[in-house]
């Protein structure tokens, strides 16, 4: 079974050639590996490949088929691109909703102050919302010159990670 997996900027083509219990033969972008792989349902992996012992932790993200992968030295954003994901991606591509119109907060927090209202004209770099999380305040700025199309939050709101705050025109 072959699928595509996106890791950072790379999209790898990966195919499970053979499986004999914990011994797998896997083709990754044309390179064939024989690995001894043990794993838990919650994403702890122990892989032995050519004598080397690798530990990988996969943490599922809110979006299905997306993970954060932890290795010894680094952290990676990983995504499985199967037929369903490709379909959704193509459909969204037609919708063409540009990310650059939006101000989002990557972290959960609390809205200290919304500095703009719908219809306001803003300049690129102008602070539009102030969010407080864990005693630190962060200023969120307009990504480009434009007009505020919609404000999704108000002062004192508690927000989740990746929440949309402001949309520009």
């Amino acid at each position, binding site marked *: 079974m072959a699928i595509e997996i996106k890791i950072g900027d790379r999209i790898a083509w990966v195919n499970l050639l053979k499986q*004999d219990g914990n011994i797998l033969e896997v083709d990754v972008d044309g390179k064939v590996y024989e690995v001894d792989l043990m794993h838990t349902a919650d994403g702890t992996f122990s*892989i032995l490949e050519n004598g080397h012992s690798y530990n990988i*932790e996969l943490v599922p993200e809110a979006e299905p088929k997306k993970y954060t992968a932890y290795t010894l030295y680094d952290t990676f954003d990983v995504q499985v691109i199967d037929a369903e994901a490709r379909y959704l991606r193509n459909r969204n591509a037609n919708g063409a909703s540009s990310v650059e119109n939006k101000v989002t907060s990557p972290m959960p927090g609390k809205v200290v102050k919304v500095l703009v209202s719908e219809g306001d004209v803003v300049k690129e770099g102008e602070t539009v919302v102030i969010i407080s999380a864990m005693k630190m305040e962060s200023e969120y700025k307009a990504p480009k010159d434009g007009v505020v199309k919609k404000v999704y939050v108000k002062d004192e709101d508690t927000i989740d990670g990746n929440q949309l705050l402001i949309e520009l025109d």
Partner: protein
Amino acid sequence: MKKIKKILIANRGEIAIRVMRTCRELDIETVAIYSEADRTSLHVRYAHEAYYVGKAPSSESYLNIDKIIEIAKRSNADAIHPGYGFLSENAVFATRCEQEGIIFIGPSPEVIVRMGDKIKAREAMTAAGIPVVPGTDGEIETEEEVLAVIEEIGLPVMIKASAGGGGKGMRLVKKHSEVVSAVRAARSEAKSAFGNDAVYIEKYITSPHHIEFQIMADQHGNTVHLFERECSVQRRHQKMIEETPSPLMTAELREKMGNAAVEAAKAVNYYGAGTIEFLVDNELNYYFLEMNTRLQVEHPITERVTGIDLVKQQIYVAEGRELAFKQEDLKQKGHAIECRVYAEDPDNNFMPCAGKVYKISTPLGLGVRTDGYVYEGYEIPIYYDPMISKLIVWGKTRNEAIARMRRALYEYKITGVKTSIKMLERVMNNENFISGNYDTHFIEKNEEQLLSKAPKKDPIDMVIIATLIDYLDKIGSTEANTKEFTPAQSRWKKIPYVNHF
């Protein structure tokens, strides 16, 4: 002398648990308080008793003096330990405790007032013959005043919360355009952290070392210092890594500064644990910066090299005992380093990063101590400090301690939230840090090495294979665990038989 039998810990997180651990060793019962965000936090479960104190924002819970006093009386606590932050340097609270007949584990309210007011503290130190950081007098009421003061003393300046500490409520201002937002931010932080939004301005000294001395004094006039802590590795004016001894320190300077620290404490009739913070320049001139009239976050490194349990000593002093040791009994043995693990994103300007902890592997073994409070499945609240753990190592030499810290950081895995762990590992591999050549600008000066990721010796293809298997496993998963009652299971996926190369 009154033997303390029950202590209310007016705090949360790692420091609440730290204090409770010593209480357990002393057979003292513990009372926890918790906000709405903390019902399942570890300090609630570690304590003998636990009471709800209020809504999640600290102003309605961990800063709610009336409610905390009410709980202390209801639970018959003899004493209150304030930890650090929150009410630990709040003289009103210390006074209320005194009025209600509850021992406040800390210095007298008068000393808190005097040292908490940075202006008065500077006056006291100058009178005691201790050099102070050049700065201006008086607090700032409005943003307009700030601009006026800057006109006088010039840029850069530090905006500091008068009631501040722990790096909160501090902002460096280099340009006039930054003044308004810096003051507003410092104010707002100070308000929520200390319940007091007054700020003042100090001249900004370039390239200083932040070195502090630990003080311990009893109520009978005995005062000792427990040597220095080097705290110059900071980001956002908040300490990130501390070590003792300081690589900068000489035996002569240690004696001189140690004596100054003891004099400073004696000058204000200090008792309990306290810290005198100094700025030291490259010519080894030192200036009194401020006194923290409480336990410091970084107290464990002092505990490790001196063998003294500082919380135990705080409790003994509060009971009215005399110190069991004199200055000449105290020695620095070996080298200790602390790394603070924050839930934050070092790649994104150290932005705090709340969220759910997925899994934790804690470093163990020789010479390693961790003081933390988060657990697997714990949801780090957005309302409080992003520090989730402290990792403390000891080594016979500084090099051994650095190697051990590197090993411990390698073992430390916290997934599900972003943390400073990998960034701390890079500090342990930084040449300037290793050679002890750093000041408070260490992070900016070494940004390139510290923020660049390690060369990819990483097994990316193995990550891809792991992802593939997890994916196949999940889409093929028909064995949904719907059994009501199941015993303990091995978590490793069952395969019919295990093969070996």
